[in-house]
């Protein structure tokens, strides 16, 4: 392939140097290129939020970004939040409150909430509803997710 891009990026603290097709979406690069399949693709038009990752600490839609656009930047995906044996308090809270059913939208909620909770350590229910209104979930009706966020806020402070 003659048209390629030499991408340099840090993901979850690890440095990667990869040769990529310049039009590859960040979501596909993370999932297929790096094997980090925790970031999910629900719509590829920026509406559902399942593909949300953190770019230099801010929540973005990886389905709307080309991989070369994150050259020399820092990404965090859900895999960087915690492990099966060492869940982050936010992940613990989701589990306790039964805030996930099929789990497909969950990584996007977690990455969206992480920076938001840091800035809003004591949110009201209305504030939480608005904060997650850009993430779609078809299974839970959002109620247990809101419970989880309240619980997480307590755990994290």
């Amino acid at each position, binding site marked *: 392939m003659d048209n390629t891009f030499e991408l340099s990026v840090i993901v979850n603290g690890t440095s990667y140097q990869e040769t990529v*097709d310049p*039009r590859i979406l960040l979501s*596909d690069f993370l*999932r*297929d290129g790096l*094997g*980090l*399949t*925790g*970031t*999910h*693709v*629900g*719509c*590829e*038009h920026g*509406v*559902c939020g*399942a593909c949300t990752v953190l770019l230099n600490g801010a929540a973005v839609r990886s389905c709307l970004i080309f991989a070369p656009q994150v050259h020399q930047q820092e990404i965090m*995906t*859900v*895999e960087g*939040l*915690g*492990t*099966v044996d060492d*869940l982050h308090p936010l*992940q613990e809270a*989701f*589990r*306790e409150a*039964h805030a*996930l*059913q*099929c*789990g*497909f*939208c*969950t*990584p996007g909620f*977690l990455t969206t909430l992480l920076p938001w909770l840091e800035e809003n350590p004591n949110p009201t*229910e209305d504030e*939480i*509803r*608005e904060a*997650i*209104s*850009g*993430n*779609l*979930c*078809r*299974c*839970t*009706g*959002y*109620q*247990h*997710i*809101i419970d989880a966020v309240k619980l997480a806020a307590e755990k994290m402070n």
Partner: protein
Amino acid sequence: MTYKVIGKRVKRVEDPRLLTGGALFVGDVNLPNMLYAAFFRSDYAHARIKSIDTSQAKLIPGVVGVYTAEDMGEAWEPGPPLVSPPPTLEDVVFNSRRQVPLVKDKVKHAGEIIAVVVAESRYIAEDAVEEIYVDYEPLPAVTDLEKCLEPGHTLVHDDLDTNLAAHLVQNKGDYEAAKKEADLVLKRKFKLDRGAAVAMENRGIVVDWDQKSQHLMVWDATQSPIPIRNGMAARLGLRTHQVRVVAPFVGGGFGPKIMMFYAEEMVLPWLTMKLNRPVKWIEDRKENFYATTQEREQIQEVEMALSKEGRILGIKQKIIHDTGAFNPYGLTTPLNTQSHSMGPYDVQNYNSEVFVVFTNKTIVTPVRGAGRPQGIYIVERMLDIACKDLGLDSREVRRLNFIPKDAFPYNHEIIDQAFAELVLDSGNYLPAYEKALEKIEYEKFIKEDQPRLRAEGKYVGIGVVPFIETTGVGPYEGARVAIEPSGKISAATGVGTQGQSHMTSFAQIIAEELGVEVEDVSLVSGDTAEIHWGTGTFASRGAVVAGNAVLAAASDVRKKVLKLASKILETPEDELELDGGLVRVADIPDKSISLGELAVLANPFRGAVEPGTEPGLESTKYFGPAYGATAFGVHGMILEVDPETMMIKIHKYVTVEDCGTMLNPLVVEGQIHGGVSMGIGNAYYEKLHYDENAQLLNASLADYLIPTSAEMPHIEVYHQNTPAPNNKLGTKGVGEAGAIPVPAAFAQALENALPDFDLEIIETPLSPNRLYELLYKSEE
């Protein structure tokens, strides 16, 4: 000491992997040497194909092949019929037409697949799809449910002389006689539309044919891996042991991921066997709107005969149901509508005629609710209208008509979707109804809050709707439970999991039966290598049918444990107890043996085995109910509508649900919340807009609106428990309950909120635009 864990709010064992991005969904499957498929789909809903030019597509570097129906040769055949009409019904007209892998001659709905490209990457495959040129002869599209049955109308299927897919009549008692006694006969024509399931995960399939071992491995985001395995093996001329289908974690099913034998499920196995390389296809969201099944329109002419006290004397109904271009799933949805058109009421006379018609749109198969919401909608609306006409209190009329609690099992005599007579197994409607009225503070709202808020210029209204839900239908499911030498339990069942928490709630059943921790039970659902027989996850049946199979298998293992332990410990069985992974003598706690040790002893390497003993501590059992378990409930809502923007805000939402024994209340609540969110979507935000060319005009999440957290109210869930008499767990299904009564509750509440407008709502969905039209028109 008895160990109780059924009914507890146990944390899910599957969560840590899902929360850390470590759970396998079909899109995550990545195999060496894998190819990617992309499909050329028809833009036209109805058109003859004059020619297909794939020459340019084939030239793109990285493209391995481009195939059409012609290339499939003898391997080309339509999908299998999945559900036939009930053999127990007489005089049924049923014209079976099923979807095809790749279109030959004529396209019958927009999105049908005309060609498939296989390439080294998805990106290259999609580039190649753009280079395919198809010459079409467009034809008029069949879209109108009523006009399409007129003689001379364009036909969807040329080999039929009609657009009629099915016709049947069901009858109970004598409606015409009942009508003669009526003080009031109401007639209304309803237009009911539902929508797409919109699971967050689109469909997908990965297939891998290994030439050397002559084995086909399939990962499929399906609700029914076992029928898929069976059907694929049959189509490919393979034995069932040559095909393994795994439904990994599936991101939401809601109906359309059932064993459809979608075109993609027919094309990909053919490709992998032809190319001898793994092939992957993951649907994108736009494709999902065209190519994944959905529910759409029903037109119903309903007649209800009542006494002046509001007692229902009879119901008569004509349903026209849109099945789309093909009808592989039989009559399931309209039969469900019939089963629910009498609601929870004692209706002695019922006559219902169903016409199912073909149109040039996507195939219709059940979406959460599966025809039940439409039945509940019309009966509740007719009662609301009757109350207005007769000047009666809507609560009194419900109370008057409920089937009384000593009348169960109550036989409605018509045939339901499970081919059995519609028998409501148990019920206790009145207390549930009173509880809902109490929790929503009905009296206080009507007498104090509503008048006060009206005086402030606010339009607030209340709606309370009772409903039933047929659940737990057969034919059967199976489960295998085994104690491993480690002392841990492994189990398997054939129902796939798309978020229903089977891995936890079924583990709870096993844990209680065998006295172990829930975390020590590892349950696999959705892998055909683990269990050979089963149907799938649909119709709110997992907990009832698979759950009871799990109980039966676990109980059998318990019997084997006790028998063997009794011998080893030289103690009678009734003095033994199972707790903490051990079998103990009741009053001599030191005298015990672990389950793991027993498992080893049950599978000796040497020595004689008593004749008639099965090795190990393992059991496989099946459960098949004679008829289903009828769950029921009541939803109440208070909403406010802005008379200028028509935007609504739900102030209070209350549900009382009775699904018999709950396996895990956290899970039940989650199912209710999720169901209500789909119900709210169906009532006020979601609509598939098709135009006269059967073109879908809103095929994206930006334009097809599902509720976000901002649209959802806080939902209060209250439980009642009327145990199901016909299964040992006493449990009933609850997966679809949340979605069923919502549109009817909306209609009642909106009419109640806007009394000055003389509004009569006999359609669904509504929307801000549509409500505006209805109000504006009713003012003129």
